[in-house]
Each structure stands twice: as structure tokens, then as C-alpha cells.
């Protein structure tokens, strides 16, 4: 037998930090390497907020890269996240996106698992291999951490603990998106498929906001003072005041834009956690966007919305009206982002580089200090991506 060589796909990366080869969005053979180096590598991924599965036995199915997983609330009220696979022959255990089960039974040979992941039954086990022990066949789980009720997993043993990984500039605003204390109530999803590579979906920047969004202009809605914080490992966090004019003539019902606020709120927070999760709080909408790449082409985004346990009925109704009309795949202010995803994907089939300009002071230096409306904040995440993928940067 000949020795097996694995040739990893590689790419030439330009010397200039503000250039990204458009090919990176289109080269399908990068996907297996992205799975290995990023999705199964040293990164944390949010899976579920505790309020999405509030009752014992509630579960939610999801994916980590291409691995099907599910989160479930056990009899002990603890949330655990498992691979969605029977430990016998690999059949998936849950097939619905959400549900409630007392036990998880594989239909194939009736192996039965508790919500805590233990194998509690397997027919005819006296005829199994010598030394068979049910204890060795619990559901495979992940390293898991919780922040304000949001549960994250990683396949890495070496990545830093969650808060250290996110950094204070990221987790502090995130805590405010998660209601300050995580005491949220789940209000529903908006789910959509976007026809683009996952990296195009999460490459949105600070430069576009006042320019793409005609809705902002039409509504005479000006962004106030704000900051953009970026980290070396590719997380971005925008925070800005919202100055919504008192007199919005373009709309008959301007109450949709009311910012009722609370002491833990600022007008607008948008965060992008590497590799591809977006969190946002515009006015009173609390939103986590779980994102699932469908291979090298296509991404499914699940916009999850929340209210707070302390909200009165009026506030709940307000949050629901706002989220159901302003955000998501049909929303007044975010549909314009969606329209870019497929167009940027088509356009990136052309040769050459995508070039970032706004905020770039030196093309040959990576800058972590960026202004609110700069697009240079995306460059540290590209550098993080390049390093993880092992692509060599050309010499200047």
C-alpha cells in the first residue's frame, strides 16, 4: 500500500492587510479545512438560550459545522448539549427542530437515553460483546459554558474559557443584549436561507450602515456617538446611541420605532462573534442570530428574539411589533443587508481582491483601533481566519 498524502487546499494571501482574495468566498475545497480549523477548532459557538428550552425535557436541535447536535434540559434542570447520534449505530435521536421528550429513544434498535445523556436501556444486551457496560455508551457531549443564559460549546480542549475568549469589550455589551441578567423569555424565530458563502454573510461592516440603509435616511434616523471594538481573534462589537427624530413623516405609525429603553440599554448594539454569530439590540429588540453554513454555499440564519421576564404586557407587545417588522428577512431595516449577501456572492466570482478602504491608515499594518463607521474592523477577523487556515501572506 502506498503512503497516503493529504494535500490541504491553500491560497496565496496578498501582502496588504486590507485585501482579501475574492476566491476565498468561492473555492469549495476550503470548506473541509474550515470545518477542521475553525468550526471544530479553537472557537466557541452559541447553541441555545435557556429560555428556548424552559421546561424539563425541552430540546432544541442544531448543528456544529456538519455535526448534528441537540441541547436538552434534564430532570435536574441542567442544560446539556449532545451529539445527535445513537451511540450504537449512529442514527439521529431527534428529528424536530424543537420539542419535549422524557427519554430519547433510537427507533432502530430501541436504545434508550435519559435527558442527562445516559444509556438506560438496550434490548438483548446479554448477547453483546463481553465486558459491555452501558456507562461507556452515554451520549457524546462537548465542553460547555454558559453566559447570561446562553450556552456555548467547543470541540477544543485548549481554547481559553469563554469570557476570556470573548474579552470584556465583547461580553459586557453581550450581557446587555441578553437582558443584563439572562432572565429572558423566548418569543420566536425568523428563519431564512441566504444564497452565499458563510464568510460573506458575516463580513458586514461599520462603513455600510448609513449608506446602504435607505430606511435610515428616509426615516431621518441618524446614528449618534458610538464605538467599534475589535479583538485579535476576530470579534467585533459596535455600540451607538440612536437619535430617532420625534417627527417621522414617512410612516403613519411611527410607534414601531419607539425606543422605550431600560437602564441596561443603549440604543444600538451589534456584535459579530467569530466565526459567524451576530447578536444585536436595536431599540428594544433583543436578538441572537444563530447561523448554520450549508457547506461551502448557502447559510441558514435563525433570528431568535426575546423579551425580558420583567417586561409588562405593553413592553412585550412593543418588542414583538418591533422585531416582527424591523428585523430579519422581511424587516424594514435589515432586509437591505440580506439583499447584499447574494449580490456579493455573485460578484465575488470575478477575479481579484475585495479591497477594504474606510479606516485603513497603513495597508501593511493590522490596526485594532478603529472608528465606529470604519470597515477596517473586519480586517482582524480576516487575519485570524488566514492564520487559522494556514495561508501564507505574501511578502511586501
Amino acid at each position: 500500500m502506498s503512503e497516503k498524502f493529504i494535500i490541504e487546499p491553500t491560497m496565496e494571501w496578498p501582502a496588504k492587510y486590507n485585501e482579501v482574495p475574492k476566491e476565498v468566498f468561492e473555492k469549495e475545497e476550503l470548506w473541509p479545512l474550515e470545518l477542521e480549523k475553525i468550526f471544530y477548532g479553537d472557537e466557541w459557538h452559541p447553541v441555545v438560550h435557556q429560555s428556548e428550552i424552559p421546561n424539563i425535557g425541552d430540546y432544541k436541535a442544531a448543528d456544529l459545522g456538519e455535526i448534528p447536535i441537540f441541547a436538552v434540559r434534564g430532570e435536574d434542570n441542567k442544560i446539556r448539549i449532545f451529539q445527535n447520534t445513537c451511540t450504537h449505530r449512529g442514527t439521529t435521536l431527534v428529528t424536530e427542530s424543537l420539542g419535549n421528550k422524557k427519554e430519547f429513544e433510537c427507533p432502530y434498535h430501541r436504545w434508550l437515553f435519559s435527558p442527562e445523556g445516559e444509556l438506560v436501556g438496550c434490548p438483548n444486551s446479554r448477547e453483546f460483546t463481553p465486558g459491555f457496560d452501558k456507562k461507556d455508551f452515554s451520549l457524546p457531549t462537548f465542553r460547555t459554558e454558559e453566559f447570561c443564559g446562553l450556552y456555548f460549546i467547543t470541540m477544543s480542549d485548549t481554547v481559553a474559557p469563554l469570557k476570556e475568549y470573548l474579552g470584556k469589550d465583547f461580553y459586557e455589551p453581550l450581557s446587555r443584549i441578553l437582558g443584563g441578567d439572562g432572565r429572558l423569555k423566548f418569543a420566536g424565530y425568523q428563519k431564512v436561507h441566504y444564497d452565499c458563502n458563510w464568510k460573506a454573510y458575516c463580513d458586514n461592516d461599520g462603513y455600510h450602515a448609513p449608506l446602504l440603509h435607505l430606511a435610515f435616511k428616509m426615516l431621518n434616523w441618524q446614528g449618534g456617538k458610538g464605538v467599534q471594538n475589535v479583538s485579535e481573534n476576530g470579534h467585533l462589537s459596535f455600540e451607538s446611541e440612536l437619535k430617532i427624530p420625534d417627527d417621522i413623516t414617512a410612516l403613519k405609525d411611527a410607534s414601531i420605532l419607539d425606543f422605550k429603553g431600560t437602564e441596561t440599554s443603549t440604543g444600538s448594539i451589534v456584535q459579530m462573534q467569530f466565526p459567524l454569530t451576530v447578536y444585536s439590540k436595536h431599540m428594544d429588540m433583543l436578538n441572537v442570530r444563530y447561523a448554520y453554513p450549508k457547506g461551502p454555499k448557502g447559510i441558514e440564519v435563525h433570528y431568535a428574539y426575546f423579551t425580558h421576564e420583567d417586561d409588562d404586557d405593553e413592553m412585550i407587545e412593543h418588542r414583538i411589533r418591533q422585531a416582527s417588522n424591523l428585523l430579519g428577512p422581511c424587516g424594514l431595516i435589515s432586509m437591505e443587508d440580506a439583499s447584499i449577501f447574494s449580490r456579493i456572492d455573485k460578484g465575488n466570482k470575478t477575479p481579484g481582491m475585495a479591497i477594504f478602504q474606510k479606516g485603513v491608515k497603513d495597508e501593511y499594518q493590522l490596526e485594532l483601533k478603529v472608528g465606529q463607521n470604519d470597515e477596517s474592523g473586519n480586517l482582524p477577523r480576516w487575519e485570524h481566519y488566514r492564520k487559522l487556515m494556514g495561508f501564507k501572506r505574501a511578502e511586501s
Partner: protein
Amino acid sequence: MSEIEPNVIFSIENLNRDYICALDKLDMNKWLACFNKQGTYKLISNENESRGYPIAFMLDDKFERLQDRVTQVNDIQADSTEHYQMRHMTQLTSITDLGNNRYQADYNFTVYYTQNLIETSSILCVGRYEDIILIENGASFLQRKAVIDTNVLPRYVAYPV
């Protein structure tokens, strides 16, 4: 449905026909004209609806919101969205008399879309309408609720269905 007068069925079918023709021609003023001044429109996934989660894709819970939907489609988003042609196929499945000239009507529907008029056609969403219709000087929607089985939309949706 046997107890429902034929002229009621006729009025309800006419209203639905006006509605789907307005959308297929993207005539938003004609779409608005299908609603009563007390009318509401909602587009929601079956996943949310069946589990009692209130978040919708579109939620026009009063007439001013319906008017703003027209403004949004005609003026605010016109330049930034990729237009697609819709074709609505509907089938009336039941009518219930609620009294006071009000009727509950249910339809199944499929909406096809053809993007930019040059590409192949696909299904945008499949679902059901749950309507409350007032028949008084013609028919109008007090409620048109589109509940879609298509929990994951195949693209962003720029127009009501």
C-alpha cells in the same frame, strides 16, 4: 360549506382574487384596498404559530401599519431589493359563518417566485390563510393571517404574500 350562501362564497372568492392579483402585479394600493379599516395582516411561520411564539415575519396589526407596508414596498426598499415576480395559487378549504356578516375563511396557498425575471422559478412559501372577512358593501379583510409551513424562507421576502 353547504350552509353558506353562494353569493357569500362568490364575495369571498372575489376578495381573495383581488388580493392575489394585486400582489402578483405588485400593486400595493390594490392590496391595501382589500383590507377593512379595522383590518390586520400577519405573515408567520407555522413553527411559531403552532408553539404560541408571537414573532412574525410581518405584523401589520392596524390600518396605519398596512399603509406603512405600502410605503415600505413602494418607496423605502424599492432601490435596494432584488425584485422577484410572484404567482399565488390558492384553494378555498372552508368557510364558517361567525354572525354579523363576518365569515372565517381558510385557504391553502403556494407562492412561486421568479427572481429578476430571468431565472428559474421556485417555491417561495407554502401555507394557509386564516381569514376573517366582513361582507358589508362588498367584502374586506378584518384579518388575513398567512401561516407558512416553510419555516425557513428560501430568501428574504420583500413583499407580503
